[in-house]
Each structure stands twice: as C-alpha cells, then as structure tokens.
C-alpha cells in the first residue's frame, strides 16, 4: 500500500508540475488570458501556452522520465547505486555525435544535431550490448563503459581541436549544457519513439533485474532467459539515454538521483523501482526546467546547470540517508 501511495503522489507531483510549467512563465498572463487560451488555442495567449510552454514542459517530462528509467535499469543491472545513464559511455557518444554535426556545419539543418547524437548513442549502445553479452561481471562492464566514455570524450576534443571554426567549441558546449527550450510537438514525437522502444525493453527486463540481485551465477540458473533479459536492459537503457541526450543535451543527476529518491517507498527491488523512477525523473526535470525559466538571470539558465546545482546537494542528502541500506 505504501508503494501505491508513493506512485499516486509521484503522478500527482508530475501533473501539478506540468500544469504549473504551462501556467507560469516569463510573459505574465492575466486570468482572462488563460480563458482565452483555453477557448481559442490560436490566439496570442493560446500560442504562448500551447506551442511554447506545453511542448517544452512535455519534453522536460519525457527526457526526465527517460533518464530516471535508464538510471534505475542500470543501477539494477550493475547492482551499483552509483550507476547513471552516463556510465556505459552512451551519453558521451551522443555528445560526440552532436559535436561532429556541429563541426560539419550542419547545425542549420533542422534535426541534424539530434539525429547525429542519436546515431552516436546507437553505435555506443550496440557496442555495450555486445560487451555485456561477453562480460557479465558488473565491475568489468562499468570499466568498459568508462573507457567508451573517455574515448568518445577524446574524439570530441579532437573534433574541436581540428575544427577550423572557433565558434564550434562554444556551440557544442552550449548544446551540452542541456536545454528543452524551443521544442515543438514534432520534436517530441522524434524523441518519444526511441524512448518508448527503450522503455518497453527495460520493462520487459524487470524480472531479470530483480533476479540479478542474487548475482550472475544464481541468475544464470534461475530459469529466466537471462542472456536476452540482460541485452534488453542494456539496450533499453542505452536507447533511453541516447534519446534524452539527443533531445536535450547532457543533463546530470536526474538519472542518478531518481532511483534513490523512490527507494524510500518503493523498496530496493530493481524491478519495482523502474516505474517510480521514471515518474520521479519526469517530475524533477519539469520542475528544474520551470526553475530555469523563472529564475531571473541575464541569460536563461541552462537545464543541465540547474539540475547539477540543485541536484548535487539534494543527492548528497539522499545518499547520506540511504547509505545505511546499501552497506552490507
């Protein structure tokens, strides 16, 4: 029952945050404007609500949900509370894909950066799935992921180094800081498709993640098709991470912190933290993006900056309180 109450609260939080994100913004609106927007979506207030704020809030929810789910799946798979969507090198590879597109001057073509980032994520994801089939120990997988991450980072540096335009680095850096500003509904669909496939794969692997609690050898003889379940978990987590980086750049802490936040009521079972983590990630990122929009700064704050600024102290607090439960 505790779990059901927790899920209900998370859904309520996500809905409330999304409604707030649509209602509140830089352009002050009066009560009458909201009524106009509801009655006539084509009116000026309607444009602000339905084509600027709503898709932006929905994108924040989608990206946050993907990061939370990806983080929960990877923490379960690797039996490591420090795992996050970046641990397998997929995020860094997506960043490399984006960097290449920007360096080649493709930034003007709509969707080119996103597609290139997704391609980078898919290449790294495929590599990680293949490695996960060969090496089963979590420690080995983490080390290989760190290597992929470092190598993708090195290649990105090489791209900036060799790029003739000095603007490239600034552009890539700005992209990497993360943002869901100026997104429209078609962007949302482009992100939702790979994210949905990833989510289905992860959901299917849930039983396997729970079984891995007992270690690789017990799981291998448990009667579950572990080879396929592991591939689904790794591939799904990679797709989710890749889709989110392609859509919004690199956003830290949400994927790491969401599973920790929900374990307090959902319990430790990796299969049962998946849905709550996705909801928590979505709610957190909608709130973070709202904060990025309304905090009055000269230049709008980047989403990745906000999540790191608020996320790091929050995560330290959560980790401190949770430390007791994973000390064995």
């Amino acid at each position, binding site marked *: 029952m505790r779990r059901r109450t927790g899920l209900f609260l998370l859904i309520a939080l996500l809905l409330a945050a999304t409604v707030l994100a649509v209602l509140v913004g830089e352009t002050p609106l009066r009560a009458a404007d909201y009524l106009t927007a509801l009655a006539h979506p084509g009116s000026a207030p309607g444009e602000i609500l339905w084509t600027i704020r709503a898709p932006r809030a929905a994108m924040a929810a989608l990206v946050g949900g993907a990061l939370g789910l990806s983080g929960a799946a990877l923490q379960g798979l690797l*039996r490591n509370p420090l795992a996050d969507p970046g641990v397998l090198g997929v995020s860094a590879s997506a960043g490399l894909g984006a960097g290449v597109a920007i360096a080649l001057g493709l930034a003007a073509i709509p969707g080119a950066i996103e597609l290139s980032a997704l391609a980078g994520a898919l290449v790294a994801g495929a590599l990680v799935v293949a490695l996960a089939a060969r090496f089963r120990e979590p420690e080995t997988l983490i080390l290989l992921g760190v290597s992929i991450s470092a190598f993708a980072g090195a290649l990105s540096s090489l791209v900036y180094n060799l790029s003739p335009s000095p603007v490239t680095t600034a552009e890539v850096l700005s992209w990497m800081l993360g943002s869901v500003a100026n997104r429209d509904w078609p962007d949302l669909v482009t992100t939702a498709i790979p994210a949905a496939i990833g989510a289905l794969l992860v959901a299917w692997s849930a039983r396997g993640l729970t*079984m891995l*609690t*007992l270690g690789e050898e*017990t799981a291998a003889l448990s009667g*579950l098709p572990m*080879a396929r379940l592991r591939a689904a978990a790794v591939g799904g987590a990679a797709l989710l991470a890749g889709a989110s980086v392609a859509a919004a750049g690199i956003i830290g802490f949400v994927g790491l912190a969401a599973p920790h936040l929900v374990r307090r009521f959902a*319990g430790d079972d990796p299969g049962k933290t998946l849905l709550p983590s996705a909801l928590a990630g979505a709610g957190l990122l909608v709130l973070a993006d709202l904060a990025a929009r309304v905090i009055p700064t000269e230049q709008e704050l980047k989403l990745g900056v906000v999540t790191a600024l608020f996320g790091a102290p929050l995560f330290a607090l959560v980790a401190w309180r949770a430390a007791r439960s994973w000390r064995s």
Partner: protein
Amino acid sequence: MTAAWDLRELVVRQGGRPALRGAGLTVAAGEMVGVIGPNGSGKTTLLRAGLGLLRRDSGTAALSGRPIDAIPEPDRARLVGYLPQERRVGWNLASLDIAALGAPDLSPAAAREVARTCLARVGLAGFEGRGVLEMSGGERARVLLARLLATRAPLLVADEPAAGLDPDAQLLTLELLRAEAARGAAVVVTLHDLTLAARFCDRLVVLAKGQVAADGPAATALTPAVLRTVFGLEGELIQTPTGPVVSARRAS
C-alpha cells in the same frame, strides 16, 4: 537409471594453471554426495564447470542424461537448483521476496506461498518481511538456503552451505538437504568439515589438485592414507555412538 548429474573427465584451465585435471562425479536421485578436499583442490570449479557456468577445456557434463550445453537456459532451472558459495545480495529485498526468486516458474502468489513454507523450514518463520541486508550473515545464509529449497529441483547443488554458520545452523542446513535427498532429490554439497561430511553424505568425492583421489562411502573414502596424502593430517575416522567422527592432527 540415468544419473541426475554426470560429470566425466572435466579439464578446466584458469589463468594458465590447470584447476581441474580430469575430475568427475555422478549423483543419482535420492543420493547425497559430499565433495571434499583442501582449499584450491577444485571443488567449486568442479561444480561451476559441471553446471555450465565455467568454460570446460574438455570432458562431458550431463543433467538427467542431457548434455548441459544442449539444454536451453530456462530449462536448466527445472533440472537443477544452485546455491553459490558467494552470499552477496545486491539489494535489500525482504527475505520472502528473496526466497520466492527460487520459483520464477510459478505465479507470484504461488511463489510466495512456496517461499513462506521454505522460510519456515529454515527456521525463519516470522522473518518474511525483514530486509536481507539488515540480517546477520547466518540469517541471510538461511534465506538463501530457503531460495534453493524453493526451486524444488530434482538436483540441488550447494557450495559450502555450512560455511560461517553456528553449529546448530550447520546441522539444520545439512538435515534439510538430507531431507531433500530422502524425498528423492539428488544432492551435492561441498564441505570443509570432514565429520559433517562423513555423517550426512551417502558418498564422498575427495578432490586433490583437480583430480579425484577417492570416491565412496565415508569409511572407504576417508582412510588414514587419504587423510595424510590429501589433507596432510594424521588421523582416522572413528565410529562413535552419535555417528562417525574424524579425529586428526596436522601431520608433522
């Protein structure tokens, strides 16, 4: 009659060093076999290679007459339940949920019912909701034993099930495995305590440097010669009113 587990001439090299050099064992339904030997003699390697968890360099391994590599992953669980030596549990699940993982073939409700029975058998009735990482090492070992029992497999393989347990829990563990054999399961355990091995097992397979040094009932497997050459002990198996006892001291 087909053996529940039939391992022949297993050779496994690890890090260039031969860990198994032609060891094997067979166990039939209703039989409890103890695998004993000094540290590094290949006990765990024999079990893992025989279960297909480790690559074999040569030799054959069969479960209920079928070559292990030919059995699809999900089908193996119907033939064997395995309790590894390593008792690390990744997350703090309730002991009932851990025990229920032994029966993923059942509906969640039925699996929990089986798990509840098995927890009661290992003496943990009333501990169903306790998180395994909040338990003592001995309690956790019993939860993992309950998970093994919940598999209801015709072959149960337990690697060092008595290690690190207090005397009462050691006897309980071996009595439960003995009861499984009495119900018709084939049971294989590795043990370091030679007295426990002699008391509970129908047959002992003595490993030395990756080979079988002796295979038979305790009286023929634990001879003074085997104790001396394999274990480096001066001593013998003595029959007492409460059962056999291995009395020995280090050979000088």
